[in-house]
């Protein structure tokens, strides 16, 4: 479904990610693990053309190497960044409305409202706070809103950058429940995480990144308690 071929990113003259290749197959959940500064976020930003890159990115046999971010979004891909995708001065309902603006245009408001009530089944506290400005939500709630914004677009490919960063254990569990739900919905998932074990449990395959390079890859379950993970995070 998504193929990343020999992608490199340079900041000024320093290299941030170095010749990285990753593949995500249809209906597969893939994670990229690695400590901070390993280049995980840069990799995602490179896929979505938020930062300039070398190399090639292919989505469903279409070359999207140079496709602008907003056009990639229209191809059924959602990217929830680590900086959160909420609009602070708009309320929760409006945030979801804007995230789904093109769907409202094409399929009508009724369809949107129906999707919305399905989403709210998973995000009860967001339903209660529909009229509250997103800027007043707690960090965790903003994070949940970002995920909800992604879900309402009913994407084929869901890309997430550290969706559990800064979340309390309870909310964290929630996020992984939702990931399980997405898998059931036949969504393809690419996730970048610091939260090693739960991510490995929730995904099919894993790539381990260290200082801009892919160091290891394989079935997620095989990495549980493995040495290369420990090395990437704690330095052994």
């Amino acid at each position, binding site marked *: 479904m998504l193929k990343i071929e020999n992608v490199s990113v340079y900041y000024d003259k320093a290299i941030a990610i170095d010749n990285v290749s990753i593949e995500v197959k249809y209906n597969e959940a893939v994670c990229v693990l690695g400590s901070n500064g390993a280049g995980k976020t840069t990799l995602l930003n490179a896929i979505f053309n938020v930062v300039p890159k070398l190399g090639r990115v292919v989505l469903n046999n279409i070359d999207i190497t140079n496709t602008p971010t*907003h056009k990639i979004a229209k191809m059924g891909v959602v990217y929830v960044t680590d*900086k959160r995708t909420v609009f602070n001065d708009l309320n929760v309902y409006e945030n979801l409305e804007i995230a*789904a603006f093109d769907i409202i245009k094409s399929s009508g408001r009724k369809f949107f409202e129906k999707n919305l009530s399905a989403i709210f089944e998973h995000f009860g506290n967001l339903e209660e706070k529909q009229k509250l400005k997103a800027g007043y939500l707690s960090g965790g709630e903003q994070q949940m809103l970002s995920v909800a914004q992604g879900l309402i677009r009913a994407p084929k490919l869901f890309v997430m950058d550290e969706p559990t960063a800064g979340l309390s254990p309870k909310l964290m569990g929630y996020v992984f429940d939702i990931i399980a739900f997405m898998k059931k919905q036949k969504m393809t998932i690419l996730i970048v995480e610091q939260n090693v074990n739960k991510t490995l449990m929730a995904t099919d395959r894993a790539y381990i990144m260290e200082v801009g390079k892919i160091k290891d890859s394989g079935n997620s379950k095989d990495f549980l308690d493995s040495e290369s993970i420990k090395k990437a995070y704690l330095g052994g």
Partner: protein
Amino acid sequence: MLGGVLGFVLIQHSIPVFISVIISTIIVSIIAILIHVTMLSKTKNANELSLIIMTIGISIFLRGVVAVVLDKDAHPLTPFFNFSSVSLFGITFSSQYIIVICAVIIFVGLFYFYMNKTLPGKIMQAVSMNPLASKIFGIDVNFQQLKAFAISGFVGSLAGIIIAPISFVQYDMGVMFGLKGFAACVVGGFGNNTGALVGGLIIGIAESLSSGYISSSYKDLIAFVIMIAVLFIKPSGLFSSEDVERV
């Protein structure tokens, strides 16, 4: 300024007022779009300072063109309606003032409705709040900025043309209006519509009082004196809460 001047030229050529207004606002909006497409969006590595300098460049360029094509004199424009004045509660208003007041009410209302109650308006707001997130949800940020530019061109030209019968048409009309609007925003606090409105009222009242009690030749000064006084005391404006810095 452009709106006023264009409207003036069209009306001079005995084109009906209503049609002149429409044509000139459309032309100015197109010019605004062209400016955005050819200049602002093409500027690489644009930082704020270079964009400011560019805007100054565009503004003096347009003024220069008007000064050459028209001239530098002030031209009167007859009010849009024949009746000369209206009496209300014993106070007499000239007809053009009525038009200005009505236009302000209508446009502030429309603008508020568009920006806060319709999806396209909210999308424009969203782009300014979080451009990256907007892109991620499929919004064409560049196009939205273009739209914002066109709308500001439209509103600006409309303001120019309806104020023209009061202020005369001249190549440098608009500067004082812009500055006083800015002063009102500083007094009220930026990003705060109510504040700006109250700031505008304070300045307007102070102006009338000063021309009554001191001298009308210093009327234009009072707005800036108030602005600087406010900056001394509370730089964030009278009605703003403390800035929320985010990590």
